[in-house]
């Protein structure tokens, strides 16, 4: 693939040599001007080939190479006016070079058109070049009668493709009128392109656009002043203007490439600068190097998601939002994401180099952000745990007050009544004692239930398996326990697993409308994996309601993880990993 641009460069050099040699032998154009003008063309070809090699993914390089080649070929008729082959080639390329140039500039730097107007103009340029070429190829005939004032009497051969004679000079006049309007139109389109570009793009596009505007305007001036393109070989001043116009655009592009080299050396400066950059200032350093003041940095958190330097969560912009995202670091362990001007995507090497240079500093920032996020999370969960403890105490007080305490009071009243009845009525006394007895049993049951809720004795005494079995028995939704480790787990892990299942079963019964629940506990790699799956309505959200939130806190306090997968309509899958080494 790299051979093709090289071959094209050789062919361009050959064409250039052919023209200079031909001019020298034939005497026209003047040898010194020919040497300068055609060498300028070769320079443009070389620049185009360099761009082609550097950015093979866009057509820009190819078009910038084709532009000077077509322009050189269009001069074959002047150097070899008696050669039908040369005249045919020259006519075919008459306006093609300009069309290539317009295409390259309007699609720069992405290689794609940013508007339908731009695309339409390029299509028009190709149609114009083809039509103008065809008219000359088919109808030009130097032997036919014609206006002796036109300079094209100079060509003495007919193109190989000649079919009939037509008064070509009149048609070419029309084409020149269209060319004048098109040159002005192109200037307007280029101004519009600059105005619509992002600030980063403007910096890249502006020199190129200025050069192309110059080329278009000098054509318009020629046509306005002389009503036809100037024979620049015969005019001292116009020769320099036209020659400069032909190399201005490639030169502007070369400047852009040089700017890229300078940016590369800016990366070297960045590496040195980061050495003394305090944490938190990496963004400023990177923004300076990439010349994108709008640059933002999102640090990848280990538990997923992104945060800014302060540990606050950050959402990356979606594609099509006018911002581009570049992720730094390996795909499986990204360090940070740069949110930047899309124009930087045109300089992937620069982005990659700057990103690589900043990676270590960003890794440092990431760890700090991670730490801050963890501290914030820890602080929040500590508050929640304290609040949950207070809530639990209030609930216990209320349960005791409404339950067992009331029953014991009733027993006291019953005994008081029985004492009053003791001598009077044995039957009533027995009834009162029976009632007191019934209240006492109910009070004992309630106290047992309450104690079980505080910490189930079966868990302490017999372990997770029997404790989960009692939970399953009490659940209104049928529960299948697929497996529980036979051996005892550490008490905190057992308690976390038990309350996780307990809360999950209560939630399923309350909200899920499920017909069955599966529970399993597996011990592997020093962790207990607890899974609870139901076939209910799904849509559970841990951010709502304190139950799941409290469970999350309990699991996280043991350095565990809790994952809830609850797509609406497809049940809820709750999976916790609790360390129990």
């Amino acid at each position, binding site marked *: 693939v790299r051979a093709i641009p090289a071959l094209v460069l050789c062919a361009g050099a050959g064409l250039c040599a052919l023209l200079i040699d031909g001019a020298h032998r034939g005497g026209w154009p003047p040898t010194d001007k020919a040497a300068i003008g055609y060498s300028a063309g070769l320079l443009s070809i070389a620049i185009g080939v360099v761009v082609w090699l550097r950015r093979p993914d866009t057509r820009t390089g190819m078009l910038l190479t084709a532009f000077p080649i077509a322009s050189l070929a269009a001069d074959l008729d002047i150097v070899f006016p008696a050669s039908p082959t040369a005249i045919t080639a020259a006519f075919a390329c008459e306006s093609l070079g300009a069309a290539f140039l317009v295409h390259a500039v309007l699609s720069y730097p992405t290689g794609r058109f940013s508007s339908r107007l731009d695309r339409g103009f390029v299509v028009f340029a190709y149609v114009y070049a083809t039509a103008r070429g065809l008219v000359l190829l088919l109808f030009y005939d130097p032997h036919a009668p014609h206006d002796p004032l036109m300079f094209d009497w100079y060509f003495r051969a007919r193109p190989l493709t000649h079919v009939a004679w037509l008064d070509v000079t009149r048609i070419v006049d029309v084409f020149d009128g269209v060319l004048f309007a098109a040159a002005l139109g192109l200037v307007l389109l280029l101004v519009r392109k600059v105005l619509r570009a992002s600030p980063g793009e403007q910096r890249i596009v502006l020199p190129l656009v200025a050069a192309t505007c110059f080329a278009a305007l000098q054509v318009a001036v020629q046509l306005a002043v002389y009503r036809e393109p100037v024979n620049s070989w015969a005019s001292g001043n116009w020769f320099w203007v036209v020659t400069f116009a032909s190399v201005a655009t490639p030169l502007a592009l070369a400047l852009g490439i040089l700017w890229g080299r300078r940016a590369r050396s800016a990366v070297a400066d960045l590496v040195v600068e980061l050495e003394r950059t305090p944490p938190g200032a990496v963004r400023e350093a990177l923004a300076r190097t990439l010349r994108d003041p709008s640059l933002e940095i999102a640090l990848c958190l280990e538990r997923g998601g992104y945060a800014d330097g302060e540990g606050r969560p950050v959402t990356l912009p979606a594609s099509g939002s006018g911002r581009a995202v570049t992720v730094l670091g390996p795909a499986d362990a990204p360090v940070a994401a740069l949110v930047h001007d899309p124009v930087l995507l045109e300089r992937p090497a620069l982005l990659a180099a700057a990103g690589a240079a900043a990676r270590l500093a960003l890794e440092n920032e990431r760890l700090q952000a991670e730490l801050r996020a963890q501290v914030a999370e820890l602080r929040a969960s500590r508050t929640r745990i304290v609040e949950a403890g207070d809530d639990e105490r209030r609930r216990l007080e209320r349960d005791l*007050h*409404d339950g067992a*305490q*009331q*029953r014991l*009071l*009733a027993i*006291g*009243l*019953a005994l*008081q*009544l029985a004492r*009053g*009845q003791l001598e009077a009525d044995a039957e009533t006394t027995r009834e009162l004692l029976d009632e007191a007895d019934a*209240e006492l049993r109910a009070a004992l049951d309630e106290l047992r239930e309450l104690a079980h809720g505080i910490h189930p004795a079966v868990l302490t005494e017999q372990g997770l398996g029997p404790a989960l079995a009692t939970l399953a028995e009490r659940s209104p939704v049928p529960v299948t326990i697929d497996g529980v480790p036979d051996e005892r787990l550490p008490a905190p892990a057992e308690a976390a697993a038990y309350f996780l299942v307990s809360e999950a079963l209560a939630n399923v019964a309350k909200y899920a409308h499920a017909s069955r629940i599966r529970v399993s506990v597996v011990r592997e790699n020093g962790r207990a994996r607890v899974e609870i799956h139901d076939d209910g309505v799904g849509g559970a959200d841990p951010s709502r309601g304190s139950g799941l939130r409290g469970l999350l806190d309990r699991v996280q306090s043991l350095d565990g993880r809790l994952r809830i997968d609850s797509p609406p309509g497809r049940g809820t899958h709750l999976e916790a990993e609790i360390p129990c080494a």
Partner: protein
Amino acid sequence: MLCDDLHVSATVLVVDDHPSFRSFARRLLDDAGFAVLDEAGDGASALAAVRRLRPDVVLLDVLLPDTTGFELADVLAAEPSRPAVVLVSSRRATDFGASLERASARGFITKSELTAAAVAELVGGGP
């Protein structure tokens, strides 16, 4: 018994959200010679019963599902029949502090110490 001769005809409404307490309290007071007219489980039905039955005494639990005994006592104090309110709770008087001192009630009895005599003593000045 103890208070038979004192309050032969004093009528009582028992207000508490626990049915077992209501029924035992009713029998305790009935046995002592009070005439318990009715029971109520919450503030709204208690107010309705007071307006309908115009009891002399309201035995009123502090914690009710729809209001507190303190608030209901204030409402009852504005009723034309002006019943004597005796607040009761399973908690102790010290748990309520100032709200108890400000309450429009004759007094307070902890439920575990509830006796007909204690009620009679508080409403002694009444009809």
